[in-house]
């Protein structure tokens, strides 16, 4: 365990803890937009900036992104200095200019004292903040159907050639993880589509409800060894089935494990 000080408060965390988690552990808030506990830290949104210093540094502070900086023994962390606040304000102001109509950004901007952006608002407003969560989650699942394309001001998230992505398995994780819900998709008991791709569905052998895409089933049984037969029935039918099994069992033995 290592001990560090966050805004004057001591906190003990295991070695290898990220500064962000240590700060939260100490009970302080740090805004983030591109962080997700299940994914590798990325350091793109720059909202989690904090100042760090040490007693021997003589008042000199270093600004770091807490999502990637490791918690270190004896570190003094300041999450609310004037320059941290003003830098975060510039960042959220810039995002608000990019996404003037996005509720999440509006709320975060309001928390930093900004009603509207001080910059030139995007003439073609978008909800995408380019946090990279969608592409990272897609990589994490082992699919990599979408990616960032172009660079600089022209950067965007897109499938290859801006066409229906051949590798997409339709798991919707990208849409679910998107903090501004800006990836459109459709899913129902009969069909699913995302990124302009229409998926072939696995229909429940009992009720006929489409509950998973064919690609999803194949991808996950390939990667994890879960038998593909598990995907034959939908979850509701499997539950009903199990209830029936119970009855049979109870007639015989009496208990279920």
């Amino acid at each position, binding site marked *: 365990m290592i001990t560090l000080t966050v805004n004057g408060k001591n906190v003990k965390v295991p070695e290898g803890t990220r500064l962000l988690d240590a700060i939260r552990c100490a009970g302080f808030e740090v805004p983030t937009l591109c962080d997700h506990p299940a994914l590798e830290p990325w350091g793109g949104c720059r909202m989690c900036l904090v100042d760090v210093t040490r007693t021997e540094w003589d008042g000199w502070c270093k600004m770091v992104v807490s999502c990637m900086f490791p918690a270190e023994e004896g570190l003094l962390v300041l999450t609310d200095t004037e320059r941290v606040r003003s830098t975060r304000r510039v960042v959220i102001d810039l995002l608000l200019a990019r996404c003037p109509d996005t509720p999440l950004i509006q709320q975060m901007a309001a928390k930093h004292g900004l009603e509207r952006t001080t910059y030139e608002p995007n003439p073609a407003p978008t909800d995408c903040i380019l946090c990279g969560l969608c592409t990272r989650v897609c990589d994490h699942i082992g699919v990599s159907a979408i990616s960032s394309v172009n*660079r600089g*001001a022209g950067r965007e998230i897109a499938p290859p050639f801006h066409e229906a992505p051949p590798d997409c398995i339709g798991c919707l994780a990208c849409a679910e993880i998107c903090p501004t819900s800006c990836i459109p998709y459709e899913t129902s008991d009969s069909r699913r589509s995302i990124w302009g791709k229409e998926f072939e569905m696995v229909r429940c052998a009992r009720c006929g409800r489409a509950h998973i895409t064919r690609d999803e089933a194949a991808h996950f049984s390939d990667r994890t060894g879960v038998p593909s037969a598990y995907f034959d029935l939908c979850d509701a039918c499997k539950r009903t089935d199990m209830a029936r099994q119970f009855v049979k069992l109870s007639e015989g033995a009496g208990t279920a494990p």
Partner: protein
Amino acid sequence: MRIDSRARFEEAVAACRRAAEGRKIEVLVCCGTGCLANGSQAVAEAFQKEVEARNLPASVGLFTKKTGCHGFCERGPLVVIQPEGILYTKVKPEHAGEILEKAAEGGGAVSKLLYKDPATKKAVEKYGDVPFYKNQTRVAMRNIGKVDPADLDDALAHGAYAGLVQALFDLTPEKVIEEIERSGLRGRGGAGFQTARKWKAARKAKGERKFVLCNGDEGDPGAFKDRSIMEGDPHSVLEGMVIGAFAIGAHEGYIYVRDEYPLAVVHLTLAIEQARRRGLLGENILGTGFDFDVKISRGGGAFVCGESSALMRSIEGKTGEPRQKYVHATDRGVFDCPTVLNNVETWADVGAILHKGGDWFASMGTAKSKGTKAFSLVGKVKNTGLIELPMGTTLRHIIFDIGGGILGDRPFKAVQTGGPSGGCLPESHLDYPVDYEKLTEAGSMMGSGGMIVMDDRTCMVDVARYFLSFLMEESCGKCVPCREGLKQMKAIFDGLVAGRGVPGDIGRIERLAEGMQLGSLCELGKSAPNPVLSTLRYFRDEYMAHAEGKACPAGICRDLTAYEIIAEACNGCGSCARACPADAITGEKKALHVIHQGRCISCGACYTVCPTDAVRFFPKRELAAVQETGGAS
């Protein structure tokens, strides 16, 4: 033949020296990119043909050789006759015969092709007497222009790999690092990090695989010293890398070369093959049992790949997105292995340091910046080209003594150093000694050694805006402050140059700049505001003129500038009308010419060509007043 021991190496060098001595008269034709563009390929061929046609006996020993960049690109194609050291400038193929005659006679020069000193108007015969060369001290560029980059034997005859032999046979890896430490060598790519410290860390780092990388992604516009080194003396880079690999215990290396430098790739590839064949690279180098091999990785055209973590991702075949560096590359770099990354010039220095000793290198330069540094001196200066000088030389000496002053003897305004991460220094800083600390202190930086000289016809707001557009295109777009910040900063500047500026703009620029400096992920974003802040620091008036006065004092921003012809000064020569791309100037021969404001696009072509300085520019907002008083039609 493979060289597998120290004795064999000495033998090989001696043989190469003897061969070189047999070449009694050498015609060195510069075939760097600059001279090639001026037609030096044809010149080299013409010399070759002439030599063959003469069918001279071997005892005359007349040879021609294609070399790398001599540096004085302005005057290319360049030809040097050795051993006399006669420098011919602007040579054409038809001059070959004449020059050879003189050379074979063994005395004298073809005077019409000699360099004329613009100051004294006198022809200068010897290479070493030309002011551009006289004041240089070459270490990294020691063999450029002397050796044929496609010939390892020639390089060996000129001392290549001597430092490597000393390192491998006389020293331990620790001693090599000590020698580098003693030299005080700091990274020549921009930031100036202590080379020895990097090596030490990488030597200490645990890992089966370690890498040494060479950063040849010289992206700073206006800098081309790395290109010249890779093209003109690739073996100096390889030698440095093998020494570095030996010091840290690496067996694999990459040279990352910009896509825009095709000739560098050709010469490096050739050099690697030759070095491998001779046992200077690859397995069991010089019979010592040490293995090290190098691959070339061609960049895809992205400035951000000059940033170390982006460069490493690019070598891995990924997009050049930088990674936050809280773990040093010396612990986890390319392919997650301990990695030392140094700039081309740094590697080229290493061999010389090992050969001549760290103390020798440290005897040059300033207290904290040791040795020499290569610069590309370009822009509105008379002698443009490549130079190498001891650290601590003043800007004035560089620009006025070596560079010969400003083109057309116009007033000096600023010099831009450090590329898009650097800044512009004004006249008051001309006596500043150039080293890492001084440049940073002045709000600029060393960068990769580009020095772009600007005269009074350069608008500093336009220069800052140029760098913003450059960076906006080159930002990888990963982090918000850099991607969105540059876009917004550029929008403010677009307003300034279009006359839409407001007094509050300067404050907004400063606030945004601070946010970008503190908030950006990598050095590209952190340093992106430097050109803006340094111009703002030294040329605030010009910003005020744009923001409040809606005027461009240098007459460069078209939306703010109008032109007219001063009646008394016009001699009716018609140059302006011919130069005008918009056909906006009319006038009879020998009579006053007139600019039709409705058609004028304010390009300034007329201003530039007018031999009598009869064209003047003024703020466009005064146009109505001028027209009322009948000053222009």
